[in-house]
């Protein structure tokens, strides 16, 4: 690194002024970059949330429609069975019984889908939690950046590392409890008091 030496006091001041200006603009740039980086993470988290919500809404509409059709199918099979019995031929009765079994199985699958379709709520809560963590980390990093003298010549890698660790620790402490601990979509526990 080339060290510039001023010729006189005036030049010294000019040089110092230049350094301060460069220092400030670098700092400002640094913070803006950090802000933009954290903002882009939040934008991506929002995008995931929108995609998941959109998919869940569509799935719920599909679910309701299939459920309605299944009920109609079930009722129709019952009506045909009534019309066919007792004179109905054996093959027709057997076919209707098979239809009833299929209708019951579809209903069972739909019940299971109710449990699975709740994933949207869990994902949304986790995304909101992660977005809060990212925001807290950004705020803490910026605060420590403002308070520290990282730009000074004495700045070491260790000091930088300590600053980041401090920010992460504070962000961790400030973060709210994780609202979702489920690792899968199995039914949750039930407890009556």
């Amino acid at each position: 690194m080339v060290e510039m030496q001023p010729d006189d006091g005036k030049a010294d001041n000019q040089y110092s002024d230049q350094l301060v200006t460069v220092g400030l603009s670098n700092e400002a740039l640094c913070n803006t970059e950090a802000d933009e980086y954290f903002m882009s993470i939040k934008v991506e988290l929002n995008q995931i949330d929108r995609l998941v919500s959109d998919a869940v809404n569509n799935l719920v509409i599909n679910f309701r429609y299939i459920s309605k059709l299944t009920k109609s199918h079930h009722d129709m099979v019952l009506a045909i069975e009534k019309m066919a019995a007792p004179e109905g031929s054996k093959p027709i009765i057997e076919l209707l019984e098979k239809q009833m079994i299929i209708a019951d199985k579809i209903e069972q699958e739909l019940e299971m889908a109710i449990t699975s379709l709740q994933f949207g709520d869990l994902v949304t809560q986790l995304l909101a939690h992660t977005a809060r963590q990212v925001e807290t980390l950004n705020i803490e990093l910026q605060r420590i950046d403002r308070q520290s003298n990282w730009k000074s010549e004495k700045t070491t890698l260790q000091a930088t590392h300590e600053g980041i660790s401090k920010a992460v620790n504070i962000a961790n402490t400030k973060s709210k409890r994780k609202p979702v601990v489920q690792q899968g979509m199995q039914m949750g526990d039930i407890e009556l008091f």
Partner: protein
Amino acid sequence: MAKTILAVDDSASIRQMVAFTLKGAGYEVIEAVDGQDALDKANAYKVNLVLTDINMPRMDGLKLLELLRKLSHYKAIPILMLTTESGDEMKAKGRAAGATGWLVKPFDPKRLLEVIGKVIG
């Protein structure tokens, strides 16, 4: 006469799944989007059971539980918490505030109906 259940959740999909399950079993369902909305509807309609989430905007489920228990009609009405929260500390808070039971999401429709049948009588 069908019993009425107040289903409280800020997630539209959860409300729809709960309503679908309960209506299919013959219950009448009133939906609320958060604790404040639920409190307003609980005052307007005398429901037979409240099924509420915890983490919601404006007013959370624990605050709702606390306020409902202060209303004469809701002193003995079953109030079930349906939430992603499964920590002992939260459960203890719910229990202390007067919750009847704690159901961790995701719920299974058959088990939900069993529990409701048990507490609603």
